[in-house]
């Protein structure tokens, strides 16, 4: 900041000052004239980043905190109930002309009213001048359901195994107990449907495919086909029996679920019957202690991190997306690391440095500037349609016309992103290789080491921290990329994870979910943009944290490498 004292530049030209006039004082040679602008640039950058992170952090962290529910009586005596969501000034066209401040003091509030099944919308704007009275009734409940979003209203009646009670405060613990039992039943049901029925379906599919395979190999009239057909029908019968048993079990549970229900009533008195098993979570929104609120907050986070999405991704969790992002990024790094390192080793260590190599280098650098969607198109056209279809024709003819590898999948996505991040890795690796002192190479070669031995023992270990930096950059870039993924395998809702318990356990051909795409989907593609908005922030927070976590891990490995090979340790 000393530079600020040396400000007046005009002094040079001041008349009468012969000395400064004749010789001239170059300010830049005396003071750090541009220091303030450099510092300023840094500060502007930091402020923008900090503001961005703060916005995401605040919005992301507060989303799951249970807020109060208002019961609002309007001037026309209608009543609504909801969580106040957002408040804004109403812009009136006239105010522009009159330009008087106090005329535009009208505000309106957005209430999250829930009850989509009754009102056909989740949110509602209320002008504040229409409000007669606001209260926070202690007995109003916020009820999260598996369908139709939350219900906001009163619990009117309990139906427990043919007995009917009117709901009152004393019945709350009973309801909680029933709710726990119902949730346990729901989990069993989910397991039955997904795991057991899923695996039977899978086996049935396999039978069909193996028959098809025999048919393709030997023809429909062959002896082989007939014997296979016979043995398969026996197996199929067995499987179908199993299937029937499971279907019966499911039937029983569903029947039982129907016997335990509650009748809910919204503030205007409309009733709605809901099975207890369809309730995810319920709480008296205006009658919570701080620890209860914290409990709800934490349980919502846990659900968000571990559960699968519900209701067009707006509710529920993002576990498949977390897993998809992580697996895809990992796969990408596994592909791009050896490819990039070997390519730059050739460029830097083996290729004769000349015009051709410089050209290649320029091309690689420019590749980093190609729009990522172009990579996506290439990935779809080349990997999925060209390579994938060929793989299908050769290895999976029995699946046709359904594609296995001939469509987007996590493998193709990882390959596409590997291609996208390859320039980053190559450039960083080349720099890291160049930073290894020539004297070390000479020392090694003079000891009688071959070129490859020198690279392996001296150059690579010394360049490794720099290479890791490149991989970290590539990882961050790849994990945050969305556009190309939409073409090569990311889907809104993937029925199965790319890794599961069904042989061969890893399914690189499957499509997957991705946090970045999830943000796009809930924020801009869902039926209800308002409801998706908080999820955008939460998911963004999660994506940034995930990338940060992966980077932190890589940085940790890098610093351990650095220690190993340097003076420090």
């Amino acid at each position: 900041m000393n530079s600020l004292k040396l400000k007046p530049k005009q002094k040079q030209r001041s008349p009468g000052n012969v000395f400064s006039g004749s010789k001239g004082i170059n300010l830049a040679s005396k003071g750090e004239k541009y220091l303030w602008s450099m510092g300023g640039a840094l500060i502007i950058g930091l402020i923008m980043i900090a503001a961005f992170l703060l916005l995401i952090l605040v919005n992301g962290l507060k989303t799951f905190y249970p807020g109060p529910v208002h019961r609002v009586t309007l001037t026309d005596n209608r009543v609504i109930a909801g969580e106040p969501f957002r408040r804004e000034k109403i812009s009136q066209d006239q105010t522009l002309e009159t330009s008087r401040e106090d005329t535009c003091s009208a505000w309106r509030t957005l209430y999250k009213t829930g009850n989509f099944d009754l009102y056909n919308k989740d949110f509602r704007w209320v002008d504040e001048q229409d409000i007669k009275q606001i209260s926070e009734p202690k007995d109003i409940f916020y009820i999260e359901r598996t369908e139709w979003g939350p219900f906001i209203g009163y619990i009117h009646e309990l139906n427990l195994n043919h007995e009917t009670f009117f709901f009152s405060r004393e019945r709350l613990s009973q309801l909680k107990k029933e709710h726990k039992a119902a949730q346990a039943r729901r989990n069993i049901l989910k397991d039955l449907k997904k795991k057991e029925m899923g695996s039977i379906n899978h086996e049935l599919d396999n039978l069909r495919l193996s028959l098809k395979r025999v048919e393709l190999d030997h023809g429909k009239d062959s002896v082989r086909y007939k014997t296979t057909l016979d043995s398969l029908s026996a197996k199929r019968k067995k499987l179908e029996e199993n299937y029937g048993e499971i279907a019966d079990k499911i039937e029983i549970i569903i029947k039982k679920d129907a016997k335990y229900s509650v009748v809910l009533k919204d503030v205007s008195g409309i009733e709605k019957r809901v099975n207890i098993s369809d309730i995810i979570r319920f709480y008296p929104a205006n009658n919570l202690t701080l620890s209860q609120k914290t409990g709800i907050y934490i349980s919502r986070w846990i659900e968000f991190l571990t559960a699968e999405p519900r209701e067009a991704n707006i509710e529920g969790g993002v576990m498949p997306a977390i897993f998809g992002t992580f697996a895809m990024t990992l796969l990408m790094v596994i592909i791009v690391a050896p490819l990039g390192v070997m390519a730059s080793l050739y460029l830097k260590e083996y290729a004769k440095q000349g015009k051709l190599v410089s050209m290649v280098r320029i091309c690689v650098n420019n590749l980093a500037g190609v729009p990522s969607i172009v990579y996506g198109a290439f990935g779809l056209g080349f990997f999925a349609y060209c390579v994938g279809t060929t793989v299908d024709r050769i290895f999976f003819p029995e699946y046709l016309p359904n594609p296995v590898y001939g469509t987007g999948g996590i493998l193709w996505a990882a390959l596409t992103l590997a291609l996208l991040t390859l320039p980053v890795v190559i450039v960083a690796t080349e720099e890291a290789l160049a930073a290894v002192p020539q004297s070390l190479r000479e020392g090694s070669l003079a000891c009688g080491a071959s070129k490859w031995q020198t690279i392996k023992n001296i150059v690579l270990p010394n360049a490794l921290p720099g290479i890791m930096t490149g991989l970290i950059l590539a990882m961050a870039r790849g994990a945050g990329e969305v556009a190309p993924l939409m073409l090569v395998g990311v889907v809104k809702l993937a029925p199965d994870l790319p890794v599961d318990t069904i042989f061969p356990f890893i399914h690189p051909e499957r499509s997957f979910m991705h946090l970045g795409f999830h943000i796009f989907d809930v924020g801009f593609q869902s039926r209800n943009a308002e409801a998706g908005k908080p999820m955008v922030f939460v998911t963004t927070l999660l994506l940034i944290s995930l990338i940060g976590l992966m980077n932190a891990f890589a940085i940790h490995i890098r610093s351990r490498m650095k220690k190993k090979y340097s003076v420090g340790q």
Partner: protein
Amino acid sequence: MIIKPSDIENKEIQTIYHPQKGEQGSVIDIDTFSLFYGKSQALFDTTMDVEKGLVTAIIGPSGCGKSTLLKSLNRMNDLIDNISINGKIRFEGKNIFDRDTDVINLRKQMGMVFQKPNPFPMSIADNVTYPLKIDGIRGKNVLAETCERSLKRTALWDEVKDRLNESALRLSGGQQQRLCIARAIAADPEVLLMDEPCSALDPMATIKIEDLINELKGKYTIIIVTHNMQQAARVSNNTAFMYIGRIIEYGKTDIIFTKPKSMKTQDYVTGRFG
């Protein structure tokens, strides 16, 4: 007295050889060897025999081609693009520029010590045993023995024996240079090439290295490039004086320093230029 390069380049210079009687014969035989960096010539028809088991010093003003000549001996110049050569260098009777020469084997027979110590960023023990490891020798005992023997020969053992597994970069400059010498002799080469090994060291460390050279004399043939005339006089048996890519005078060290025939040699060793 100032000698312009043109004085020399324009007329042929005849190298002056003093008669020597080698006891064990020569191990390296440089025969009208010339070297070009691209178009510019760095060595002009250099010819000299290096006697086995003795210390040969190469002296001369900066830029006269000492390092170039030294690096040609174990073909470290191969690393530089755009190099062309003429003439022969024979090592144990065989031209090292023949097509069938095994460069790696050649380098294994010639340990090299550089001007700036260049220990590898690994442990002291790993540094010393590096030449063995790249030969595929994995036996723990062999490695440990070699490590100890080399470090003892370079008088470093007592200083580092308790910290063999520490990073070599933590040693002082002089210790690092002795470590590099230990590394260069670990695989028992025939010849030791040293390019100004003491230029980065203080006088005490320099004396230690000189003692070491005297110690190693006889076991190895040593060729040392130096700027320090006293050093050349102290440690070497033979001395070659180079000037702008040529060997001007070559013979027994005391003759070169006391009764040189060439005026330039005389001027250089008496410190009148250089």
